[in-house]
Each structure stands twice: as C-alpha cells, then as structure tokens.
C-alpha cells in the first residue's frame, strides 16, 4: 500500500547542509498499523512530510497504492501533533471536519453524513456546533482524528498525535486509534517517540536510527489483537518487546552502528 524506497532528504540553506534522512526503505501493507519510533530529532517529521507530499525528497520515492507521491495525495490524511494549530479556530467543529470534503466531488447530503458518522466514531457528536477552542486538548485531537476519518483515506499518517495530551487522555486516545483501525480497516502509520505507545499500538514497529536516519530494525509485535491498557501492558511479552525496542533506541542514540544489513526479526532474541 505504502512503499518508501531509498528516501533521502537534505536541507540546504545559509551555508549549512543538514542530512535529516539518509536512506529509508520500508513498506506498509494495506490494513496494517505500523508504528515508527526513533530517538528524538531523528527526522521522523521530515519523513512523514515527505510521505505526505508536503516536502519533496532529495532522492528516493514514495508510492501510495502504486502511484508515485508528488504532492499531497488524495488518499492520504494527516493528523498533526499540534491539534490546536491544525484545527481552524474560526470554524465550528463540524465545519472543520467538513472543509476537506468540499475539495472532493461529494453531494451536500453525503458530506453531512460523513461528518456526522466521523464525529460519532470519536464520541463527539454533541460537540459539532462548538468551536475547537471550547474543547479540551484530548477532545480537540479527537476532532482532528474525525476530520481525517471523514476524508475516507486509504492511509492515515499520524505525527506524534498524543505527545501534547496528559497520560490518561493519551491512554484513551490510543484505544480509540486501535478501535478505529479495527473497525474501519484503514492503513495507519503512527509516528511516536514513546516506546510503550509504539509497542502497545502497532502490529509492527519500525525502529529508526539517529539522524542521518536509516531503518535500524523492523519488529513484528506478536501481541494479541485484543489489547487493553490494564492487561496488555503487564504481560511478559509486552515487557520483552518494549525492552528490546528501548535497547535499540539507546544504541541508536549512542550511535552504535549495527551490521550493515538491516535486521528484520520477527521475535527479539531471548534474554
């Protein structure tokens, strides 16, 4: 579904040359929920923006469902970390959700239907007439998620969406993402710096190196499909996986170069 090949992004300006992303290759299959995790400042946002067609990569290509991405593709929706700036304060919640749909060739009735359905999915049907700034942070991010859902994307890109909300809200939002993914069968690429979150949410975790970024490891998360905050997080398997990812991130921060070949393990080595 989503195919990233040899992606490279170099920022050049005012005599400085910063290689943010060196060489990234990975794929996300249709209907998968993949988490990208890496040390802070490793170019996750750059990568996501290249995939979303908001930035032009220096080299390499991104393909969405077989088509090369050269601008924001119609089948892709974005959820940003800064929900307060991503939602428009001059529009009511329902109008915020509806705005992207106006770019599509849809009847007014169909747009209404999609907006109502998306807001119901995130339990915000009653907030349709409110302004975003009248809602709490968690609710605002749910509006942003509803806006993405209503757009009916093939792929949903989420850029550290829960980094700015409190821990309890965060747990609820994580479960919401799991639920929506299972209900709607969308492909989700979820970027985070939170290792627990990556393991809890993902079917697969892609660990990135420090900048200049390459893929350090791809890890299949073999936790059951049914996950919940209370039980999943205390299972021994969860602890093993998170420890493994944590070690990888720490090694990446220290700049330990792994074998030239990227490991693709299904199970972390036994401890």
């Amino acid at each position, binding site marked *: 579904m989503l195919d990233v090949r040899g992606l490279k992004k170099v920022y050049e300006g005012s005599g400085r040359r910063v290689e943010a992303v060196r060489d990234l290759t990975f794929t996300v299959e249709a209907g998968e929920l993949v988490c990208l995790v890496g040390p802070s400042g490793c170019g996750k946002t750059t990568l996501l*923006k290249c995939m*979303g*067609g*908001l930035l032009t990569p220096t080299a390499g290509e991104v393909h969405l469902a077989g088509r090369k991405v050269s601008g*924001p593709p*119609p089948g*892709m*929706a*974005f959820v*940003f970390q*800064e929900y307060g*700036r*991503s939602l*428009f*304060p*001059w*529009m009511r919640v329902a109008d915020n959700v509806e*705005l*992207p749909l*106006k*770019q599509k060739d849809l009847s007014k009735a169909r747009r209404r239907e999609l907006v109502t359905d998306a807001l119901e999915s995130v339990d915000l049907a009653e907030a349709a007439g409110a*302004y975003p*700034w*009248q*809602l*709490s942070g968690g609710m605002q991010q749910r509006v942003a998620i509803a*806006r993405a859902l209503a*757009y009916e994307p093939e792929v949903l890109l989420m850029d550290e969406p829960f980094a700015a909300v409190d821990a309890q809200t965060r747990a609820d939002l994580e479960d919401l993402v799991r639920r929506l993914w299972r209900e709607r069968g969308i492909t989700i690429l979820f970027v985070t710096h939170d290792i627990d979150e990556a393991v809890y949410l993902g079917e697969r975790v892609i660990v990135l190196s420090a900048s200049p970024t390459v893929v350090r490891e791809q890890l299949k998360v073999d936790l059951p499909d049914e996950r919940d905050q209370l039980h999943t997080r205390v299972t021994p398997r969860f602890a093993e996986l998170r420890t493994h990812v944590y070690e990888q991130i720490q090694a990446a921060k220290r700049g330990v170069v792994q074998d030239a070949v990227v490991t693709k393990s299904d199970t972390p080595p036994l401890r």
Partner: protein
Amino acid sequence: MRFQNAALGAAGLAAFLALGEAVPRLGLVKEEYFPPTSRIASAFADELSDGAFWTALGDTLTGWALGLAIAVSAGIVIGVIVSVVPYLREATASTIEFLRPIPSVALIPLAVLLYGSELRSVLLLVVYASFWQVLIQTLYGVQDVDPVADETARSYGLGTWARIRHVLWPTALPYVLTGVRLAAAVALILAITGELVIGAPGLGARIAVAQNSQAVPEMYALIVVTGLLGLLINVGARTVERRALAWHQSVRGEVVV
C-alpha cells in the same frame, strides 16, 4: 462596576461642559472667540434645523465612505497579491516604505491641480491616507498564517484559492479589521481637511464659511459635529470587529474548558 464607570463618565463630561460654560462667563477667556457651552448648544440646534447643514454632512460622509471603500478594497486585494506572489513583497517593500510616510496633506496642491475643488480632490486625499493603513495591516496579517494550519490545508488537497479563502483570509481578518478601523478615522480627518483647505463641499467648507463670517458659535457647533462623527465611526468599527471576530482570542477571552 459597569454602571459605576458609566456614571463616572457622565459626571466627567458634565463637569467639562460646565467648565466650558463658566470660563467664558467669568471673563477668563474672550467670549467672542470662546462662546459658553449653552451658546454652542443653541447654534448646534440651529444647524440641525438647517437643510444646508444636512447637505454638507451628506457630502462629507459621501467622500468619507467612498474613499474608505476604495482604499479598503484596494488595500486588501493588493496586500493579498503582494504577499501571495513570490518575490513581490521583497520587490515592493522599499517603495511602500517610501510612499507610506508621505503626509496626505502634502498632496493637496496636486489634488487641486488635477480635480479643482470637487469631490474627487477629497477622494484622492482620503484614499491615499487610508490605503496604507489597510495595506500594511493586510501584509502583517497574511504573514501570520500558521505553518501547521497551512500544511493541514495542503495535506487535505486544498488548492491555492481554497487556502486563501479558508486559511489566509480568516488569519488576516483581525489585522485587516484593525487596519479598517484606523483607516476609517484617518479618512474622516482627511475628508474634513480636504474640504477645509480646498473648499470642496462638506462640513469642512462649512466650518471655513462660519469662520470667515465671524459665526463663532456655529463654527464650534460644526467642530462638535465632526467630533461626534469620529466617535460614531470608532464605535461602529469596534462593533463590527467584535461581531466578525467572535472566535478570536482578543474577543473570546479566557474559555473555561
């Protein structure tokens, strides 16, 4: 609290008017140049019953409104174009900074040469003075567009026109309305100045006539009228701002979540 403020305001105004009545009557200033409040008030009442006064008021307001409308439309359209088209802002910045500080009054000779003492002379002054207020505010407003909001719009496939309409314009609106409020005040000043100096028909010309014919109370009454106009314009502009920007931080205040 609000009642108390209103009461204090009324008391202050009453004291000021009483002072205006007492000072000339006590002979502290010459009554012929500074008539007491009551005589100005009666001259004001006479003006209100004079048809020529209303014609003059209409002329002034026509010049003001027409000039302001032209300046606001031009300021917004040019401001948006200059900001949106690449390199245009950099290319025009120095010219704008040169033209902007020229006092509109310095253009009076030019206006007379071009249009004589017609409405068009006044319009030239009004438009020149208020255009810059709107243009500069529009330029600032457009610069304030949040990169995240713009990226959101781009990622959802909004084209240039849709982004101008749904992101750029609402972001710039608070600035634009500030510009319009400033421009409305400046436009009134220039309309009166133009009429006063050039003699184009309006309240300014009527003030000049009152002065020449030694009708001092009438002159003061007309000055009071221009003051009231300025007050009404400011109150009107602020009301429009509050209505149009109910969503904006400056208007909505702190929201309890």
